[in-house]
C-alpha cells in the first residue's frame, strides 16, 4: 500500500538551519510513532522535505508547488516560513491540501477571513504573534503586582527586528502597555535583521533607563549576540527575548551569562510527564544536542493531523475530486488535541490555535503562552508562568 506523503518546507539556510533541522526531527519522530501503530487507517506515512531557502514569497511558493507536483503530498506540515506573506496558501488552496504551519503571524487570520472556503485547509498550529504583546505585558504586570519583582520604574524599551513577526509583537506590546501602567519610553526601534550588531540600539535604550528591555527578533544566534553586548554594560532591568532564546544555540553562545534572561513563546514544550517523556525519546533519537523544545512543534502538528485524518476516514491527494481533505479539516477544527505543547484547539474563524490564558481561561482549551527564565548557570529553561505549567519561580537576574 502506498504511503501517505506529508511535505515539509524547511529553511535550510545558516540563520535558521538549527530550527529547520529540529522541525524535520519532530515530524520524523511523529511519523515513526504513527507508523509503529499501523499508520493512518493502515496506511504508512512518509515525510518529504524541500528547502524553502530564504523564506521569501517566491522561495516558499516554489517549494510548495514542488511538493504538490513532484511528490503528490497529501498535506504540508512544517514550522515557520516567515517571509512568504502567505503566498504559499494559493498553492495549497488550489490543490485542496491540508497545510499546518507555525508562522505565528496575524496575517494568517486575515487571509483565512478573506475566503474561508478557499483556504479551508490552511491552519496555523500556534497562536499569532499578536498574543506575544499583551501576554508579555500581563506577565510583567503580574510579576510586579504579585510582589515577585519591584521594578525601578514603569519604563519599557522595545527593540524590534525587521520581520513582520517582530514588528507586530512590538506594536502589540506598545498598544496595551499603558492600560497596565507601563510607559514605552524607547521604541519600538526597528533594527534591520538578521544582524549581530545591536550596539547602537542598546545605547539608545540605555539612555531611557528602562525597567524592562525587550527584543522581539527571534533568531537565536542574533539574540545571543544581543545579550552579550548588553552584558558589556548591563543596566538594572529585566531582559526579555522573543522565542529564539528557547533554542539550545542561544545558551550555547551566551553561556552562563544567559542566566536570568526571560524568554516567551506561544508554543513550547511542557515540562510535565508527557513533555518529559517526549524529550527523552527525542534525545534518544536525535542526540543530546538536539532541541526538543523546537521539534515539539511539528511533532504535535503531525500527530494531530494523523488523528484527524483517521477520524475523517482517510486523506486526499492534490486536486482530489472527492475533497476528502475538507473532512480532515473539519475534524481538525472541531476536535482539540492535547499534545506535548498543550492543547491545540483551532479557533473556527481564525483556523489558528487559541492561546491560554491570553484568549481562553481554560487550560484544557488553549495552548499555553509560556514564559521561561534561564536559570542554573544557563543550563535550564524553567517555566515560570503560567500556572499550572510552572517548574520554578522567577528569580532576579544575575546582572541586577
Amino acid at each position, binding site marked *: 500500500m502506498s504511503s501517505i506523503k506529508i511535505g515539509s518546507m524547511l529553511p535550510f539556510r545558516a540563520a535558521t538551519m538549527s530550527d529547520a533541522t529540529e522541525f524535520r526531527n519532530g515530524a520524523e519522530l511523529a511519523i515513526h510513532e504513527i507508523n509503529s501503530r499501523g499508520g493512518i487507517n493502515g496506511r504508512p506515512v512518509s515525510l518529504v522535505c524541500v528547502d524553502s531557502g530564504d523564506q*521569501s*514569497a*517566491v522561495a516558499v*511558493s*516554489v517549494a510548495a*508547488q514542488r511538493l504538490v507536483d513532484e511528490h503528490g503530498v497529501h498535506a504540508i506540515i512544517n514550522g515557520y516560513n516567515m*517571509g*512568504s*506573506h*502567505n*503566498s504559499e*496558501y*494559493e498553492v495549497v488552496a488550489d490543490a485542496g491540501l491540508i497545510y499546518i504551519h507555525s508562522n505565528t503571524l*496575524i*496575517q494568517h*487570520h*486575515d*487571509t483565512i*477571513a*478573506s475566503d474561508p472556503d478557499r483556504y479551508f485547509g490552511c491552519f496555523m498550529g500556534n497562536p*499569532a504573534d*499578536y498574543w506575544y*504583546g*499583551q501576554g508579555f505585558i*500581563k506577565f510583567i*504586570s*503580574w510579576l510586579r*503586582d504579585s510582589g515577585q519583582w519591584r521594578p525601578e520604574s514603569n519604563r519599557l524599551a522595545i527593540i524590534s527586528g*525587521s520581520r*513582520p513577526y517582530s*514588528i*507586530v509583537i512590538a*506594536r*502589540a506590546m506598545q*498598544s*496595551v502597555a*499603558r*492600560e*497596565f*501602567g*507601563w510607559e514605552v519610553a524607547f521604541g519600538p526601534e*526597528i533594527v*534591520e535583521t538578521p544582524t549581530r550588531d545591536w550596539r547602537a540600539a542598546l545605547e539608545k535604550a540605555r539612555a531611557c533607563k528602562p525597567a524592562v528591555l525587550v527584543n522581539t527578533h527571534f533568531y537565536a544566534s542574533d539574540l545571543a549576540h544581543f545579550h552579550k553586548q548588553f552584558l558589556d554594560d548591563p543596566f538594572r532591568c529585566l531582559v526579555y527575548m522573543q522565542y529564539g532564546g528557547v533554542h539550545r544555540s542561544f545558551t550555547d553562545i551566551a553561556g552562563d551569562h544567559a542566566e536570568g534572561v526571560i524568554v516567551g513563546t506561544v508554543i513550547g514544550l511542557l515540562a510535565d510527564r508527557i513533555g518529559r517523556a517526549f524529550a527523552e525519546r527525542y534525545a534518544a533519537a536525535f542526540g543530546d544536542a538536539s532541541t526538543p523544545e523546537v521539534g515539539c512543534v511539528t511533532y504535535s502538528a503531525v500527530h494531530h493531523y494523523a488523528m484527524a485524518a483517521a477520524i475523517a476516514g482517510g486523506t486526499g491527494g492534490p486536486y482530489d475530486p472527492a475533497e476528502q481533505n475538507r473532512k480532515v479539516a473539519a475534524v481538525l477544527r472541531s476536535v482539540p488535541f492535547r499534545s506535548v505543547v498543550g492543547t491545540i484547539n483551532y479557533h473556527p474563524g*481564525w483556523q489558528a490555535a487559541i492561546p491560554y*490564558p491570553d*484568549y481562553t*481561561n481554560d487550560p484544557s482549551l488553549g495552548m499555553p503562552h509560556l514564559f521561561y527564565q534561564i536559570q542554573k548557570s544557563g543550563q535550564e529553561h524553567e517555566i515560570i508562568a*503560567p500556572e499550572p505549567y510552572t517548574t520554578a519561580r522567577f528569580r532576579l537576574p544575575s546582572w541586577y
Partner: protein
Amino acid sequence: MTFRWRAIAPKGNTPGLAELAARASQSLGYAVLSDGRDLWLDWACGAAGRFGDLMPIRDALAGHPAFANPASVQHHIARLLKTGGSEARFAVSSDQVPEGFLHDSSSCERSEDGLFRITGFAHDVSGRGLPAGDSRSDWPRLAVEAMDQAVACWDREGRLAFANSRFDQLAAGLGVACPKGRPLHDFLAALAASREVDLAEGAAADWVARVLADRTRERPGEWLLSNGQSVDVAWRAMEGMVLMTVQDVTRARNAERALREAKRLAEDANDKKSRFLSAASHDLRQPLATLKILVYSGIESKSEAELRDLVRSMDVAVSVMDEILGLLLQVGQLDAGRIAVQRHHFQASQMLERLRREFTPIAEQKGLTLRVMDSAATLETDRVLLERILGNFISNAIRFTDRGGILVGLRNRGAHKEIQVWDTGCGIPEDQHKKIFEEFHQVHGSPSARQRGLGLGLNIAQRIADLLSHNLRVASRLGRGTMFSVEVPVGNIWQSRVGEREISERLAGEFFGASALVIEDNDDFRAALEGMLARWGVTVLAARDGDGAVSMLRAQGFRPDLILVDYSFPNGKTGTQILTQVHQELGAKVPGIVCTADTDPELLTAIRAGGVPLLIKPVSPARLRSVMHHLLYENPDRGIAPRESPP
C-alpha cells in the same frame, strides 16, 4: 403497641422472597435475616420505648401468634416489593390476644447491592372499635380508613375511643403514641413537650388549654408543625363523643402565602411606579415648559446673538430631559429585572479613561476641574454596570459642587479596590447619609430645583451595587465636600480582557498605523484595494486621479507612508508622472508602487527602469504585502524591483 420492623431480602429472584413472605406470615415474624439459620426481630415500643435488642421471634412472641388470613399478608408483602410501599390490616391471634388487629405500613427500597430493604411500622390496633369482618358489613371501618383526614374519636371522659390509621401514622410520625384510652389532655401535653408543634417558649400550657377549649366549643384551629406542615384541626360533638379530624393543608397555606407575597410585591411595584411617574412627569414638565418659552422667544427674536443664547439655553433644557429619560430607562430596566450581570476581568484604566472623557466637558462647563487618577489595577465585575454607578457619583458630584473640582481614584483594600469620587461641594448632613440612597430623596437644603434632580441617581447606584454585591460608602462634611465610593474585587491580571475580541491585522498587524495614498480610476479596484489595506490596519486616502489626489492631500493635510498608483489614466497621464506630481506636492520622495494590467514587456521594462516597484493586476495580496514590507521596513533606498510571483 407499635413496633418497627426491618427485613433484608436476599439477592435473587422472587421465589426467595416468596419464601420470606411465607415464613413471615407463619411466624408473625418480620425478621432481619442473619446467617440464614434463624429469623430475628427488631422491635421498638412507641415513643416511650427505645430501640430493642435483636431476639428470635419465638422468644419475642410467645404462643406463636398466627395470621387469620396468611394470604392477605403475602399479598401485602408482594405489593410492597413490587410498588415500594403498602398498608394493610390483619387479624391476628395468639395465646395472649385471642382476637387482635395489626395495622402495618411499610416501604421497600432496592439497594445498589441488589438487596430489598424493607422498613415497616406495625401498630397493634386491637380493640379500636372497628372490628374487621367481611367487606359487606365492614364498610364503616373501611370508609373511615379511606378518608384523607386523620380521624380520632374521644369519649365523654376525654379518652381515645378509636382512631383511623392515618391518625396513628400522624401520631407516630410526631413521635407521640396515642393508644386507645389515652386522655386527650395527656396526648396534647406530650405533643407540646415533643416540640413537634411550632410553639413559642413557655407557650405549651396555653396551647393545650386553647386546644381543649376548641374541642369544647367545636372551634376549628390550625396547627403549625415544626417540620413546616400546616394541619387544620376540627371538632364535632356527636352523642357524647367528640370527633376530631386533622387535615394537612400545607400546600394550600403555602400557595396562599405565595399569593399574598406576590400581591404585596405587585402593589409595592405599582406604588413605586405611580410615585415614579408622578415625580418624573413633574420633573420633565419643567424643562419642557422652559423649552416652550425658549421656542416662542426664538420665533420672536430679532437678533442673531439673542438667538444663539436662546439655542444654548434650549440645549441645556434638552440635556436635562435627556438625563431624566436616561434615569427612566435605568429604573425601568432594574424594575423589570432585565439587567443581566456579565462579570469579567478588565483593566481599571480603560473605564477611568472613558469616564474622564465623558465628564470632563461637563465639569469644565461649570468651571470645575475633573481629575481622574491613573491606575494599573485589574478589576473583576460587570464593567458597564460599574461605570453607571461611577457615572451617577460623578454627575452628582458635578451637580452639587459650585467651586473647586472632582477627584476620582482607587485605593487598595486588600482583595478589593475602593473607587472613590471626591468633590468640594456643599456636603450632606449626616442624618441623610442613609436616606440619600432611597428613591426620590432630595437632599434637604439644596437650594435650586436644577440641583435637586429626580432623586434617583443614588438609588439606581445602590440597586446596581446590590446586583453586583458591591458595597457603597459615603463620607461627607457640610460645606467641605463629599466622598462616594464603591468597593470592587481585584481581578486576575491573566484573565484581563484587553481591547477587541476580533483579532485581526486591523488591531496590530505589521502595517498597523501606516498610511497609504491610493490613486486608481477604476472604482471597483480602488474600493477593493482600499478595503484590503484597511483590513491590514492601514489608513487610506483614495483618489480617482492625480489632480484629485493633490487636492485631497492639501485639504486634509494627509502624509502617506506609501503611494499605490495605477499606470494608465483616461486623461493620458501615467502612474509614474502622477507619482512625480505627488512627490512635488509632498516635498518628499515617498515610496510608491505602480499597478498595471498592461503586460507589454517594453512598458514593464520602462517602468522598472525608473526604480519603482511594479505589480501586475490582479494584484496578489501576498505579493502586495511583500512589496509593502520591503518598502516600509527593509531599506527602501535600495529601490527594490521584485520579480513577478508565479501565476
